[in-house]
């Protein structure tokens, strides 16, 4: 099962290297990783998704806790979290196909952020399954490039 870890870290040089290095050294996998400033400018929040089948997730969190710059870790409850990921996607869309792509984009509430004669760049936000469904639908048109931010996640309510 996929685990979503929300890791609060001190914003110190090398902190991301320490985390990535730990995953590599212990043989843990990273499905996605997203980093940014938190509510406190001295702290960053990292969202890591990792497959708990391959390695017991508590071994991952305990090893992460040993890093001096890691302040707090939450293994978010999938039943009680909100997740989002942003994907930019370049699709070939010439002539008549353009309308078709636009129609799909509308259903997925994707925005067209760039356009030229031969292709279209779309921006879509959602959870992983929505992004993948969107990409699968557009694949027949010719997906030229995909860029994803990785999942960010937050617990529901105050907790």
């Amino acid at each position, binding site marked *: 099962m996929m685990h979503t870890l929300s890791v609060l*870290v*001190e914003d110190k040089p*090398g902190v991301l290297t320490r985390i990535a*290095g730990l995953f590599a050294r212990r043989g843990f996998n990273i499905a996605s990783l997203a980093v940014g400033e938190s509510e406190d400018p001295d702290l960053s929040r990292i969202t890591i998704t990792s497959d708990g089948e391959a390695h017991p997730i508590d071994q991952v969190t*305990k090893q992460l806790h040993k890093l*001096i710059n890691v302040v707090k870790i939450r293994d978010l409850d999938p039943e009680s979290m909100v997740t989002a990921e942003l994907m930019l996607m370049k699709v070939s869309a010439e002539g008549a196909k353009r309308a078709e792509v636009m129609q799909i984009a509308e259903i997925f509430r994707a925005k067209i952020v760039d356009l030229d004669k031969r292709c279209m760049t779309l921006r879509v936000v959602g959870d992983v399954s929505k992004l993948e469904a969107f990409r699968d639908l557009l694949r027949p048109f010719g997906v030229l490039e995909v860029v994803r931010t990785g999942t960010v996640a937050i617990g529901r309510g105050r907790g």
Partner: protein
Amino acid sequence: MKMKGSQAVVASLEAEGCEVLFGFPGGMVIPIYDALLDAKTMRHVLVRHEQGAVHAADGYARATGKVGVCLATSGPGATNLVTGIANAYMDSIPLVAITGQIRADLIGTDAFQEADTTGITLPVVKHSYLVTKAADLPRVIHEAFHIAGTGRPGPVVIDIPITFELGEMNYQRPADIDLPGYKPTLQGHIKQIRAVAEALGQSERPVLYAGGGVITSGAAVELAELAHLLPAPVATTLMGLGAFPERDPLALGMLGMHGNVAANYAVHECDMLVAVGARFDDRVTGKLTAFAPQAKIVHIDIDPAEIGKNVQPLIPIVGDARNVLARLIEEIKSLELDRGRTAAWLAKCAEWEAKFAFGYEHEPGTLAPQFVIEEIDRVTGSDAVVVTDVGQHQMWATQYYHYQWPRQFISSGGLGTMGFGLPAAIGAKIGRPDMTVVDICGDGGFQLTMQELTTAVCEDVPVVVAIVNNGFLGMVRQWQDLFWNKRYAHTCIATQPDFAKLADAFGCLGLTVTAEDQVEEALRTAIGSQRPTVIDFKVRQEENVFPMVPAGQDITEMIGGTSGRRKRT
């Protein structure tokens, strides 16, 4: 007080109580060396290779319990420390390694003697710092000592660009520590401790399994009290040797690959196994699924990540071993304990010990390596600090010397670093000048760091180096003998210097011993000389270490397991 960063480094180290710094100069640490000339309370020991500095700091830390400190320049100086840093990391030794770095504005340009020291050492440090301004130095050094020496200890690297060694700053000793992400759990959970006490009260076949954490936390007294209170036998790991006196009737000795048969049998047959400050290393457990199959397992460790890493315990307790054991003793005292319940078990363990003692053959005209260790034990009255290198001699040193007190046995456990012995012995002797320090090493390992004999002579550190010389890389040869059809690929190192003459050339006392009746006299001469001494013990070449559990096997499946344990003297 206004000063340069380099002066702040020296002032900060002295403020932390650092008495000795092991180092080797280079271009990017000249300012620190310059400031060291004005050090007030700190001694600098000049080594002859940076690896010697880090191992010496490590040996000093193990012998004293204090934080060991070493210093090297950027680039190759720093990379030469890496083995020793990894060694300290694997054995949880408190160490601060300070490295010079090139000018801050040149970092990333592949400048002369530039290496990404914090990057290279990242997987083998507890923490590291790349200093970014001179004013940070006192805080960084204060934090580094705190991190290295508390919780589960480990090495901390401080990489200082020369820019900030030269930078002017206002020195003020930091008053407190602000590390929001670092708060080791020291007190064990009381409910868990009670559960252990109750289970131990019921257990008829308990075994205590003590690791290096007992020594680190200073819990040897509590361990002995617990063992006698229950009463329960005690098996120790390599890192735990000395945590429990080996002449105590409850001592099972070391367990694992080259451990006592009795210890391995006891672990296999026990109904309850209490691991204290130990990590279920593969050299201890052998095949995990066959390890302690009947036992309720309790795991007491200060590092939560160790719990459940290799073995899932029934009752985990995160905390400092000394605190937890002290509390556990209180809880057990409040129970009505039937002390006779383990009597049959203790008798069984004693029977195994009598039946499966360590043993070897005396052959006329040859010198048995085991005999050399026995004589070192006898001549030093089981009361020397014994430092070892890595290999067969190391295992014989665990088997044939009787360790009595914590920090008496110093050895590279986790990383298995050949070349550790001599520099670590120098560090240990500097830390414990009152004790006889014997470095038991092989002819292979000795040659990896033998340049440190100069350090011993120059700094007047009278260590006794006992080379158990079999002309082979003996442990590898043993594996080739047992598992590789005796194809001794490149393990014969019989072409070697005359070690006694070599010692003489270094300015040490050099002795050669070829017969059993010369061993005692040579040892007494060496110890009495108060000089760094090398004794070349020319031992039987193809002696193997027994018993032996082949890697990955059940620990009761021991080759040579029927040869006996040493007799209690």
